[in-house]
Every structure is written in C-alpha cells, then in structure tokens.
C-alpha cells in the first residue's frame, strides 16, 4: 500500500497553530547568554542566539532577533553598562515566541533588563576588588573607603619628563595626549616613549599588562606611565576591571596615570593608579606638576635675592658705623671737643710725670699752637670735673 503523505506546509501550519494556541500574545522574561550576535545598525536589526549552559554543557538554544522597534534597547544597554552588546554576555530579556513557516521557530526580543546586567557587572567588579584586597594585602589596602595601592602611593619625582605612554596607535587619545604636552605654554620638554597596543576588546587587558612588563624591563628610566584611550564609543571598559591587569598596576614601581575617557564610573584600574578622566587631563597634570617645581625654584630665587639684599644692606650699615667711629676718634675731632695735645721736644706727652717745671712745651689746640714754659705742677685727682 503506498504511503499516504501530506504537504509539508500542512504539517507546518499545524505546528504553527499549536504554537500560537500556546504562546499567542504572551511574553516571557528569560535569562540567557547571548551568542552569535550579528548587529546591523543600518537596518536596525540584530540576530543572535540565546543559550543556556550548565557546567559548560549547553542546555538550551534559541534563535532570536531584535527588530527595529526593539533595536534601541541594544543601544541603551551599551550606553548604560559601558560594554558592547556581544557574545558571552548574560542578559535577562523579555521575549515572545514566534513561528514562521519558512524560517522556523524564533524568539523576538522586546526588552532587556538593564538593571539586572548592571547589578551583575557591579557584583563582578566588587568580587574583583575583594579579591585584589584579599590576595594582595602587601600592595593594596582600603583606607576609609579609598583604595591605597603601592603604585598610587608612590611619591612623584620632582619633575615628570620621561614618560612611557600606553595607548592605541592612531587613536584620538594618543593625539590629544601628545598635543597637550607639545603645546604647553611654559615650553617644557617631554620625552615620550610609546608602547602601542590594542586597548579595547577581550585581549586588551592582557596586552596592556604585557606593555607594562616591557616598561618595567626596559633599560630606559621613566618618571611616569600614562595609560590613555579616547575617541571610541563609551563602551568596552571591561578590560580595565581585569584582575591581572589591576594587580599589575597596583604593584607597578613607576607611578601610573590613567586617562581612559570613562564618563560612567571609575574602573578598578583607575582606583589602583592615579586617575585623570581624559588623556588631555593626564598630559596637563604633567605640565602643571613641572610648573609647580619651577615655582619652587622661583620662590627659592626670590628668597636668595632678598637674603643677599639684606646682607649687603647690613654690611653697608656696618661700614658707615665704622666710619663714624673712626671719625670720632680722629685727633681733629678730639681737638674740636676742647682737648689739647702736648709735645715736649717734638714728642707727644702721654704721661704727665714726664713734664717737669722749666720744661719748654708746645700745646696744640684746634687751630692754635701755644708755646709755654712749665712754672709748677700740682696733683688733680678729679681731672674730668670740668
């Protein structure tokens, strides 16, 4: 007996009817990992699979799609979480079941629970911070709510001039940083050695850590390390929360400055280093730092000039004083005050005992010379009772 068959479309219609009976008009919140993400921003569509794993074994998988009306949810997700909507992320989303005779079974995604993802991210971040604290207590401590790392407590050199720059080649961050240094209004010079690498994406944390190793082992000496990025989308900062990278920064022997253009919140790398929001701000901090050194030099110079001035004035005063004393002690000054000089035989007499009656002597007053003969002498015990 020949086999009785029905057209495929008939069966498919039955399946469709059954599915619609069960799922028509209903939506469900599901938690799953997104994989095979293909975004078409121009068409405002995104195709992907929702997958669930248990102990690395796949338990479920469904083809899924964001249509144009739901596409803004992806953009909102990226803006809010600071990470791109890409493979491997766990999300919670609201879906409807849809069956198409040609394309088969699909889930249409209408909404993403962004708060859930943010909570997950914050949880992961906190776990990383706790691990950094627990496993690296020699490098990292939490003091009154502030993360103190060995690195961000390193004293800065008096002048920051030799800089190791970690950035992406040709990036806006690289350009902004170098231009800010080059155009500084004080005319300071900087020696920048670039360590170029990718600083976005899954490999970024490992690549940045490798650059830090290169800097640490370089024969060149550096005053500071700058890690900058900028110009890209406000997403993909996750590499700066990576445990190994943050640990490398926390224990790095040269002060590290971050300018990674993060307007959402601080990454863990920011907490372990010295954070400036943008590449330009890192560069201008270096300029200001050197300017404050130069101000100290100028202040010392001012003090020196004042001290020298004081010293010279004091010396001049001393000299004047000495001149006055010399003048007062001069014979002319003494004679003007009414004293006289007595000479016998041309010699000045300083001992009255050398004068005898009948001696011929000369008495010199201010303008006159008196010649006389001594007639007699007597004692006067109070000669200044004038």
């Amino acid at each position, binding site marked *: 007996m020949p086999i009785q068959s029905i057209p495929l479309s008939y069966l498919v219609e039955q399946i469709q009817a059954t599915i619609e009976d069960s799922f028509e008009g209903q939506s469900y919140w599901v938690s799953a990992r997104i994989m095979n993400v293909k975004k078409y921003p121009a068409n405002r569509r995104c195709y992907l699979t929702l997958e669930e794993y248990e102990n690395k074994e796949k338990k479920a998988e469904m083809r899924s799609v964001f249509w144009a009306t739901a596409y803004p949810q992806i953009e909102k997700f990226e803006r809010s979480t600071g990470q791109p909507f890409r493979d491997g992320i766990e999300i919670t989303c609201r879906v409807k079941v849809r069956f198409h005779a040609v394309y088969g079974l699909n889930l249409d995604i209408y909404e993403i629970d962004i708060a859930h993802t943010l909570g997950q991210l914050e949880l992961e971040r906190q776990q990383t911070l706790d691990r950094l604290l627990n496993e690296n207590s020699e490098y990292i401590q939490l003091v009154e709510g502030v993360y103190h790392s060995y690195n961000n407590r390193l004293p800065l*050199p*008096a*002048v920051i*001039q*030799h800089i190791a*720059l970690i950035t992406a080649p040709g990036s806006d961050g690289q*350009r902004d940083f*170098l*231009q800010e*240094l*080059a155009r500084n209004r*004080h*005319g*300071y*010079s*900087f*020696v*920048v*050695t*670039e360590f170029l690498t990718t600083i976005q994406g899954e490999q970024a944390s490992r690549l940045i850590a490798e650059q830090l190793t290169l800097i640490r082992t370089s024969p060149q*000496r*550096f*005053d500071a390390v700058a890690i900058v990025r900028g110009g890209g989308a406000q997403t993909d900062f996750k590499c700066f929360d990576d445990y190994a990278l943050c640990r490398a920064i926390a224990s790095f022997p040269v002060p590290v400055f971050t300018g990674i253009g993060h307007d959402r919140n601080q990454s863990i790398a920011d907490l372990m280093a010295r954070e400036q929001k943008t590449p330009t701000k890192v560069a201008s901090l270096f300029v200001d730092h*050197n300017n404050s*050194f*130069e101000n*100290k*030099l100028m202040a*010392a*110079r001012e*003090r*020196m000039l004042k*001290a*020298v001035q*004081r*010293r*010279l004035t*004091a*010396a001049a005063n001393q000299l004047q004083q000495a001149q006055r004393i010399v003048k007062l002690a001069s014979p002319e000054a003494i004679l003007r005050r009414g004293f006289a000089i007595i000479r016998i035989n041309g010699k000045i007499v300083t001992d009255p005992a050398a004068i005898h009656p009948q001696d011929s002597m000369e008495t010199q007053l201010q303008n006159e010379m008196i010649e006389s003969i001594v007639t007699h002498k007597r004692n006067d015990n109070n000669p200044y009772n004038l």
Partner: protein
Amino acid sequence: MTTTPITYSQALEALERVVRELEDGALPLEQLPEKINEANALLALCNENLRTISSAVQNAITGNPATE
C-alpha cells in the same frame, strides 16, 4: 629620572641649602659671590633641562623615535 648629573630634586635641595646659608647671615661677606654663582648655576641648569630636550614630543607625533 633625568639625564642630568644631578636630579631635579637634588638641584632644588642644593638651591634651598644655599638660600638657607644666605638667610642665616653667618656666611662671610667674601663668600657671597661664590654662593650666588652656585645658586644661579643650579637655576640655569634646571631651567635648561626643563625646556631643551630635543623636541622629543614632536618626534613622537611624527612617528620618529623619541631620543634624549
């Protein structure tokens, strides 16, 4: 670290030491010129080093290796 024989912080320390000596007033007058010359030399050294490393940033911008 710098390429100068003494570091910037050593230069500042030396300068401040000279200034303290001058402020102290105990220095014989005839040593004043020597001390002023010493301070001026330190100032000139710092000033020069802060500004005249051969345009290393420009080199970085144009892709040439930065040299000291």
